[in-house]
């Protein structure tokens, strides 16, 4: 339960106590709101007393009569607006002063309640305002968390981009100082390591581009009916040189004639990541099995490998940004730590699911389900 503070500024005691009474046990609750709201009413009989209270109590809502003994309601409104306070102002006016109500609205009043009003009229106005307060709170919260996540992402990203540069710079410095002596061959290791770090950095940049597409390119998404096997073949062909190098056999199983509504580039990103991981984290001479199936409302892509597997403690983290599982077995494998997080984001955007099960040293299974008629967001 959240309580909104309402300040009533009106010189008529009857109106003030009436409003207090009507709102005392009033609650606003909608299914879409996380919590219900109730109200605490504070009263002031003059504009001056009202402003004092605004400064002290910071109300959420202000119910404001215009005709006051000292300064006028419209001046109180002006005060609130000038100070850029986060208060929703509702003018209480008589029908006769419609003109004033219009002016007040253009000055930043949110609503006006004509006098005399029924309890129901007051309640429905307060109900609307509450919805607005709630939405505003939600938006602020979302922007806040969004900002935080972005900041975190950028700071990790800068770390990930700087690490290879630092390493390359370090080696170049050693070479410049001829730290391994005059023999050129003595520097082979350093050169190999530099090339390795450059490859890693390139992967990271390519993954970042994918991620940008996923996060910003929603408008450009081109949803078409796609034959799943075509995309699978393309991905497998792309990975062929790598799989030959690792002596890993890739086989495609299942129905060649399954169709899905999706963006082909996005599907390719999903396949590429899953299949390249299945090769990367495999054993030399291992296998990758990719199986396509169709259950009526959704299609399923299963990618199984015979690789090093993932421990139970690591399995929950693998879809997060920049997570790379570091251990003796993964030490020499490059990756940006973004691949699976991109895959997860894409699948979420299709309202699909991805599940993983794994047995260390036996292999991992990634099971993707996508609805056939992509109900895209």
């Amino acid at each position: 339960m959240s309580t909104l503070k309402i300040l009533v500024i009106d010189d008529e005691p009857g109106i003030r106590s009436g409003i207090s009474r009507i709102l005392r046990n009033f609650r606003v609750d909608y299914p879409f709101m996380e919590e219900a709201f109730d109200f605490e009413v504070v009263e002031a009989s003059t504009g001056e007393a009202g402003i004092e209270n605004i400064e002290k109590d910071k109300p959420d809502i202000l119910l404001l009569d215009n005709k006051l003994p000292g300064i006028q309601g419209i001046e109180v409104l002006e005060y609130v607006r000038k100070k850029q306070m986060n208060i929703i102002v509702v003018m209480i006016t008589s029908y006769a002063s419609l003109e004033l109500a219009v002016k007040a609205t253009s000055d930043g009043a949110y609503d006006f309640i004509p006098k005399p009003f029924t309890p129901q009229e007051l309640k429905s106005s307060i109900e609307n305002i509450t919805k607005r307060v709630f939405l505003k709170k939600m938006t602020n919260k979302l922007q806040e968390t969004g900002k935080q996540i972005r900041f975190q992402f950028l700071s990790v990203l800068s770390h990930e981009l700087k690490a290879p540069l630092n390493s390359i710079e370090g080696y170049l410095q050693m070479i410049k100082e001829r730290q391994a002596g005059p023999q050129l061959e003595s520097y082979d290791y350093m050169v190999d390591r530099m090339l390795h770090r450059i490859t890693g950095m390139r992967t990271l940049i390519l993954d970042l581009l994918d991620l940008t597409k996923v996060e910003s390119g929603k408008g450009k998404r081109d949803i078409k009916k796609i034959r799943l096997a075509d995309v699978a073949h393309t991905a497998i062909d792309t990975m062929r040189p790598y799989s030959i190098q690792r002596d890993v056999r890739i086989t495609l199983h299942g129905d060649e004639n399954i169709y899905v509504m999706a963006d082909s580039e996005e599907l390719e990103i999903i396949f590429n990541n899953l299949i390249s991981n299945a090769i990367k984290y495999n054993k030399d001479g291992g296998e990758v099995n990719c199986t396509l199936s169709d259950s009526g409302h959704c299609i399923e892509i299963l990618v199984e490998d015979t690789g090093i597997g993932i421990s139970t403690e690591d399995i929950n983290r693998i879809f997060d940004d920049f997570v790379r599982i570091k251990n003796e077995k993964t030490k020499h494998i490059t990756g940006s730590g973004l691949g699976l997080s991109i895959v997860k984001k894409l699948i979420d955007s299709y309202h699909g699911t991805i599940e993983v099960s794994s047995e260390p040293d036996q292999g991992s299974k990634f099971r993707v389900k996508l609805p056939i008629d992509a109900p895209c967001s």
Partner: protein
Amino acid sequence: MNTTKKTILLVDDDQDYLYQMKTRVESFGFQTMLAESQKEAEALIESTKPDLAILDLMMENEDSGFILCYKMKKKYPGVPIIIATGVAAETGISFDINDENNRKWIRADRFLEKGIRSEKLKEEIYKLLKINS
């Protein structure tokens, strides 16, 4: 300088940084022992006592360096510890080791930027090991 070689423990999850540090530190005339993770380092110090340790801050955990530092100081209170980090430049977080409050819980003897020049690094190590250069 002392004739018996002092041993310096280097811990960093970037194998290249580790290799480069090893080369530098060995060129100063020290022995090194290496670990690529907090976990590996913890296992290593179970059996061996280094004369000084240089730890990376962010490894498996973002505060791995602090955890290791705590464990090291508990086991070997007299062994000086340097935490080498690039954190300050990246996130704006910086730890002032001379601040009394930080000193109480971090317990590292020095914080050094990762890009530190060799002579400066050597100087810091010498100071902590109380060697006259």
